[in-house]
């Protein structure tokens, strides 16, 4: 259980870093969405840190910086990165579903769903409609 939750924590660390980068290129409603999303990732990170407080090996700490998949220099690339972050973070939470039960699985399902919803919102912000995918 702790391995997949540790992977989820590493994903949340990376997501928070990414929003720090991309937020600088957004304005208006898209920036509001990015801020709300970053706050949601911080909440998930905090839950995982508490959940894994006594885990062995220790839960992963955030890296000082993360490599971005492409340069982020304007609103379009910022929104593309946001979609990618939500998809990738959703992937690690989906993986955690198979390895958890009870309250941990509920957390993982809620997190996967939140990532899917936010990815759809960022796709729509980028002009894609309806912005959904068959199986997030």
């Amino acid at each position, binding site marked *: 259980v702790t391995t997949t939750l540790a992977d989820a924590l590493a994903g949340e660390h990376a997501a928070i870093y990414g929003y720090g980068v991309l937020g600088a290129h957004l304005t208006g409603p898209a920036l509001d969405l990015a801020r709300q999303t970053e706050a949601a990732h911080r909440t998930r990170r905090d839950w995982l840190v508490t959940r894994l407080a006594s885990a062995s090996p220790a839960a992963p700490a955030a890296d000082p910086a993360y490599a971005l998949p492409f340069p982020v220099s304007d609103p379009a690339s910022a929104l593309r990165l946001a979609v990618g972050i939500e998809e990738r973070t*959703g992937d690690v939470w*989906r993986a955690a*579903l*198979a390895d958890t039960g009870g309250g941990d*699985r509920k957390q993982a399902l809620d997190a996967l769903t939140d990532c899917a*919803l936010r990815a759809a919102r960022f796709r729509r912000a980028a002009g894609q409609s*309806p912005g*959904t*995918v068959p199986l*997030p």
Partner: protein
Amino acid sequence: VVGAETTARAAAVKDCLASRPEHAGLLGSIAASRACHLEVLG
């Protein structure tokens, strides 16, 4: 459609939380997909 999606989402959530590990990921994706459909449908 909204009613069908709402019912299907609830069923997917319930089954995901109770499923065997090998089915949990797929059921979770279905639940998340239904949630997205509902948001788009408003």
